[in-house]
């Protein structure tokens, strides 16, 4: 269950974006909450971070040992690995506003707009 939307350039012709968003979504099996979270995340990224994000979905049922690294308790948890600092968003990401705030996208958008 790995999804990569970003195609890493093989040569120097591609200009890397100022910010590469590396996101990790922790789930535990294909529960409704997990699926909702994933689709919510996908939607938000497509609308706000198109082309500059990388989502890695980790299923703790398959890889329980990975729960320790990011101190995962709640499921689902979205971890923003990059840009620093690390952010954690728990829940099914149904509250888009809060997700944007949590990911620090809100302020970025405001500036862009």
């Amino acid at each position: 269950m790995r999804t990569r939307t970003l195609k890493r350039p093989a040569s120097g012709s591609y200009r890397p974006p100022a910010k590469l968003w590396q996101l990790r979504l922790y789930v535990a099996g294909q529960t409704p909450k997990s699926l909702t979270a994933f689709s919510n995340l996908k939607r938000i990224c497509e609308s706000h971070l198109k082309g500059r994000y990388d989502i890695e979905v980790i299923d703790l049922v398959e890889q329980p040992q990975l729960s320790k690294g990011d101190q995962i308790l709640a499921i689902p948890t979205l971890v923003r690995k990059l840009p620093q600092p690390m952010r954690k968003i728990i829940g099914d990401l149904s509250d888009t506003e809060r997700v944007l705030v949590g990911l620090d996208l809100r302020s970025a958008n405001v500036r862009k707009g």
Partner: protein
Amino acid sequence: MKNNGRKPTAPAAHLPKCLTGIQGLDEITGGGLPRGRPTLVCGGAGCGKTLLAVEFLVRGAVQFDEPGVFMAFEETEAELKANVTSLGFDLAGLVRRKKIVLDHVYIERSEITETGEYDLEGLFVRLNLAIDSIGAKRVVLDTLEALFAGLPNEAILRAELRRLFRWLKDKGVTAVITAERGREQLTRHGLEEYVSDCVILLDHRVNEQIATRHLRVLKYRGALHGTNEFPFHIGEDGLRVLPITSLGLNHGVSSERISSGIPRLDAMLSGRGFFRGSSILLTGTAGTGKTSVAACFAQAAARRGERVLFFSFEESPGQIIRNMRSIGLRLEPLVQRGRLRFHSARPTLYGLEMHLATMFKEIRAFQPAVVIVDPITSLLVAGADYETKGMVTRLIDYLKGGQVTSLFTSLTHGGHALQQSEIAMSSLMDAWLLLQDIEGSGERNRVLYVLKSRGMAHSNQVREFLISNRGIELVDAYIGPSGVLTGTSRMAQAAREKAEALACQQEAARCKRELKRKQAALEQQIARLRSEYESEEAELRRRDEQAGRLTRVLVAERTELARLRQADDPTAAGARGNSKLKKRK
């Protein structure tokens, strides 16, 4: 489970229990925590919750081969390892040997944003992984309440906690969950609502500047348990609860007798001294020689080759040795030979529990045959009266269990309250000697008597107790019309009696002489009479002879006369007449 025999009233079907290995706790709970169920341990900060939990795991792993998982919400793995190393737990080693898994769960609220529905499956996954990785039988969650600080949605959290405890039960692990003590509730976040099988309350109270920790089993569903508050302490080898009631009255007894070191005292104790393994109380007011009697006993035991442990709460070892030298007790060589060991500590140094623990540790290390506590009353300042009694009970129980003879001195403060105050303690004692001051004729003297001595016909006499540079001596006290005579009055009485005896003796001698004289006189008289008699007898004999001779002369003369007259019968008369005539010439 082990203690089935101890509880005859308990239902036949017992809850399976899980021995904690923590000293005393298993006795209070009648065999440990409920197996396969969670137990809540709550208490304020610094009560020893984490320590209890760690010890539960470590002992489980080491003693019962039950691996454990420690999920720490407050301390990191490194911190935990370091913290318990001071207690002698090799947590790092156990982790390396895969006996224990440490898992630090870190929650930082500022890093977390909540967006919609979630659950704590991540925690379950982690716990499950940790349990399965070593086949853990024991789990500790310390302190689960950190979740309340880290996760804002309490409704979800509570639902998840309920699920967690359910899950732990299904998993069949024996869990210890620690929680902070709440103001109105048992725990700050009401965890007792979820963990209902067993609740243990820890408490750290300061009473008159001395802190003592207490443990209480608040609840133990489906099992009998000690409901009292038990003092416990954290020592160098972990936590130790010392329940008063844990030890039944079933220690073995010895009929061996040991000398008190004072021959006359042994004589008072039906001639052979105290029983081995008995507890002896020695009470007296200040300066009655309690320490001296104790030291005497110690010396006698050490000289027999037994090991003696002397707990002194008033004097330093050097001081005792010096002071006892003045009454002829040489303790120093015994100390050097390792037969006698002193342990001096200020009573106010720490709480009773700590004292007791230190004493237990010393006793275990030294393995003495005789233990002396001088004085036990000093410890009263370290704890309340009933606590001291409890402590003495536990100490005596412990010592009796090991057949160790114990002698406690007790300082009393004069008057009749003297005996009253000892009542609490005296019932624990097998023998009770009382040292008393008697004031009179301008001096103060000591007397000793045996108030009680279980299992022997002891003397009921008051003995005067003399301390000289040759040691302790007991002498008979005189009972006069004005009471017991001691000291110089006793000597005066003795002198008086001696004089009387002398006079009596002289009188007897005089009588004897008189009699002798009389006898001599009588004998003289007898001799005189006899000589008189003899002389008379001699006279009589002389007269008899004279008379005989006279008769013969008369006959001769008559014959002569007849011859001269030419009488008849010449032949017969002639022969006779011749001889008679010759005689007369």
